[in-house]
């Protein structure tokens, strides 16, 4: 996996944002400075503190709750996310290794984390760089899951991305609530703890699968991930990306029952992200192309030459479509 760091000019743009805010007035400047400070705190907390709690995701008219436990130990971290609604699912992550346990269908899927952060670990280490694409400021204090929180507002500077609001725990900085908002001010997605314990001394065993044995008869699915094969199929490159989006990883995934790999390229502005999947099995589209959306996540599928290309991302529909339609087959690498 190749990781590209965000350029320093984005950090500079964060400072520029602060300077602009200073020019706008002392009150606004203080709110911006507070926002950047809280953003840094929120990012640090999610990467360092232990927590266990229940959160609820809501978007597209659905709500789903899950219990999450995250433990840091021995220089690494692990988490277990257990669905509480619908089919019984358990996600166990150790570092970048992910095991999905589908308890009803007795299936394990082995995968590797490639697409970055997830709630509540949502703020990048260089949070100030986000100021180039989001207007950041601290809002009011509030209460979430019985704890005092500070609201951090990240207003998109263009229509190519959603705005976001983060409720950060006053004591630790851990994000306890996230709201994704479109340009009309409508909430497209929300995820929030309903109860949480932070900073507890948790045993690493608490982040292990709840089921430790008895996997007789289970089906194993390997989503093998590796760096893309050099000299293989040409890569698909987007000619148009929202400003600030950079490629942060590119991997080759082996879908089951399919000999040729699927290439996944992940792009991000540091907060929102999108994946472009290039699937050599064009028959999956069966001649049909189009767009669908769930919560903040849009999916746009289309054919390109003899491949299926699926663009998935937390972007407004028009922005996602623009990316998908700008794709062309590159020279390969």
């Amino acid at each position, binding site marked *: 996996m190749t990781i590209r760091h965000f350029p320093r000019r984005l950090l500079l743009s964060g400072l520029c944002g602060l300077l602009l805010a200073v020019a706008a007035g002392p009150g606004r400047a203080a709110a911006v400075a507070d926002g950047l400070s809280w953003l840094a705190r929120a990012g640090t907390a999610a990467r360092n503190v232990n927590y266990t709690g229940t959160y609820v995701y809501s978007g597209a008219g659905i709500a789903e709750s899950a219990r999450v436990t995250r433990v840091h130990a021995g220089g690494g971290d692990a988490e277990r996310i257990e669905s509480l609604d619908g089919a019984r699912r358990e996600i166990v992550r150790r570092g970048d290794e992910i095991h999905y346990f589908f308890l009803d269908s007795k299936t394990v899927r082995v995968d590797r984390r490639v697409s970055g952060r*997830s709630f509540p670990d949502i703020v990048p280490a260089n949070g100030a760089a986000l100021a180039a694409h989001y207007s950041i400021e601290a809002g009011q204090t509030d209460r979430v899951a019985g704890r005092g929180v500070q609201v951090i507002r990240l207003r998109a500077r263009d229509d190519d991305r959603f705005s976001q609001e983060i409720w950060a725990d006053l004591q630790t900085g851990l994000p306890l609530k996230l709201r994704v908002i479109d340009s009309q001010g409508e909430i497209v997605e929300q995820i929030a703890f309903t109860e949480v314990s932070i900073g507890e001394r948790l045993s690493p065993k608490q982040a292990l699968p709840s089921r430790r044995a008895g996997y*007789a008869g289970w089906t194993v699915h390997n989503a093998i991930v590796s760096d893309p094969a050099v000299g293989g199929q040409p890569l698909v490159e987007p000619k148009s990306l929202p400003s600030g989006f950079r490629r942060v990883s590119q991997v080759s995934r082996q879908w089951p029952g399919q000999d040729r790999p699927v290439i996944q390229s992940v792009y991000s502005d540091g907060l929102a992200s999108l994946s472009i999947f290039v699937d050599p099995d064009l028959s999956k589209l069966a001649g049909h192309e*189009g767009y669908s959306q769930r919560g903040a996540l849009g999916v746009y599928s289309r054919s390109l030459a003899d491949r299926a290309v699926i663009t998935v991302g937390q972007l407004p529909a028009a922005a996602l479509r623009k990316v998908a339609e700008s794709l062309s087959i590159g020279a390969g690498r």
Partner: protein
Amino acid sequence: MKDVSALMDGELDPKLARSTIARVEDQDELRAAWATFHVIRDTLQGNAIGPSRFIERFHDRLEQEPVPVAPRWRIPRPGPGALALGGAGVVLMSALIVWMSGAHRDTRRPVDAPVPVPAAVANRLNGAIAVEYAMGHRQLNPAFVVDDFARSSEVRPPASAQEAAK
């Protein structure tokens, strides 16, 4: 495959265990399954958290195994075959309908489909694709982690192994 997993869990009687071991030694796909189950068990039994060599070990094991075994991933297609999907298929279709109905409610600035196709067919196919790839992108959000790929999958050797067996 069931016997291999049961063997690892110590749930086979000695006679069946011996015959299963012989089959594992003899069949590429069972050897691959044996290796995979071990990787999973290693991970499940690991109490210490820290940088692990799971992927490296996994690849090492795979390199030793000539034929990886993976479930077949089927995308539901329109036509009479859809009727044969059975109960699991109904569940899958329900999930997709929920997905798409959510999409209609949630897409506040709808984007025209670039290719005009019958709505029901397009929605179902796009929904299936959406479910698969959304999980690949939002890997740790349970709302996007669905096991329909498991419901619609079947274990079979890849095409290359089938051809080799002829």
